[in-house]
């Protein structure tokens, strides 16, 4: 029925239904997306790509708005520590 997509989040492999965004995958993996300038752990706020809180690195590229990006097989997602 629904395809599954396998991605890694901070090295841990997870499988999500096709159509899942990277932001959701990060949340499912129990991770926050980024660390703010004063050290707070942040996750998605607006869900529509305008708040920039959901930024993660995807396949080495930093500052990707993960709520606007669909998971693709083999994607390597890293969040900042």
């Amino acid at each position, binding site marked *: 029925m629904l395809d599954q997509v396998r991605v890694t989040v901070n090295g841990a492999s997870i499988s*999500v*239904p096709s*159509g*899942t*965004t990277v*932001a*959701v*995958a990060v*949340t*499912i993996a129990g991770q*926050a997306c980024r660390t*703010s*300038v*004063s050290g*707070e*752990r*942040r*996750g*998605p*706020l*607006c*869900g*529509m*790509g*305008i*708040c*920039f*809180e959901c*930024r993660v690195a995807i396949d080495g590229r930093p*500052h*990707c708005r993960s*709520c*606007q*990006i*669909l998971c693709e097989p083999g994607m390597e997602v890293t969040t900042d520590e």
Partner: protein
Amino acid sequence: MAAAVRAAECGVHVGIVDDNPTLGGQIWRGGPEDGRSRDAGRWSELLRTAGVTKLSGKRIFDQPDRGIVLAEGNDDVSELRYQNLILATGARERFLPFPGWTLSNVMGAGGLQAMVKCGLPIRGKRVVIAGTGPLLLAVAAYLRKNGAEIPMICEQTSWSSLAGFSLALLSQPAKIAQGLQLKRELSGVPFVANSWPLAAHGRQILESVTVSRGGKSETILCDYLACGFHLVPNIELAQLLGCHVNGGYVRVDDLQRTTVKEVFCAGEPTGIGGVDSALIEGQIAGLAAAGGTAEAQRLFGKREKARRFARTLDRTFRLRPELTKLPSADTLVCRCEDVPYSHLQQQTSWRAAKLHTRCGMGPCQGRVCGPATQFFFKWTPDSVRPPVFPARIGDLASIIGGPEPENSTVGGGLE
């Protein structure tokens, strides 16, 4: 989508550009999946058969010259030339900071709904919904349908405003039907007016929310807080293009034409009115831009009805003055630069705040903190400069007249 379909039906070449990975914007995110989104399915199909060029996952960030806009995707940049441009940039939620609002799992109301539509598991989770506006109810119903438990919906407006709103809706049968359906879907869910969040609590992530309720406070354990204070129109692109703005909305004439001759604007940027307004105004704009003026005029009556609803919305969900007390001194207002409320209290204008605290200088370009500071301090935002959305250096560097940059595609005409 409505604009694109109608314009294409007039025989002109139409392209549609959208940042989201799939079409549908926010209200129809994730496509048709229930009765309320029958419209979504219908318009998607019309769009497909109309042969509209879809440019998904792209955001317009600059206008180097009249008739051309630059759009950036995740891996490319396109120069889009147009004879007419229809702006249907929609709206975003208004966020008001309160203690703990930066905790993970505190999201916008539409924000949480979007996440669930994109796969976030919500079954069995407790979600408190707070803020203001009809979006709260729509979100509550959607989440509940997907198995969430809703301990409370906290609406800041008063019971009398809401009563007035219900009365106003009596003139619109479709809205009554919608209202009754929502009532059924939310039966048993506590809905409280005159209520707003006071603080979100938790160590690493959200654990509970304290809300004000009839002058007393009440703490509710929960997994998510879906909190949004109605909508703010996305007018930045219109401003970049030089369109006049009135009271925060893009000024348009009867045919949805802005003060810039070849630029039209429809939907939320001209006034928050929801799906119905957006569909009608979109059609009018599409028809007008493609030369179908007579057909466009035939929709004026329906639009007037939709606009009445928009004005009602505006009145009903006005923010109450108590909300200016939401943030405490160390509540962060600018989340990009972590600027606390106390630092902003000392500033005399948006510009001064930007210069001296960096509030508004982050990647969201003031989209989150701007409306909040406007409400708290009555600051007016300043003028808009390119890029109207963050864009890669390489793409900013690629303009007409220069050497062809790598990875650029010259897009087709846009109507």
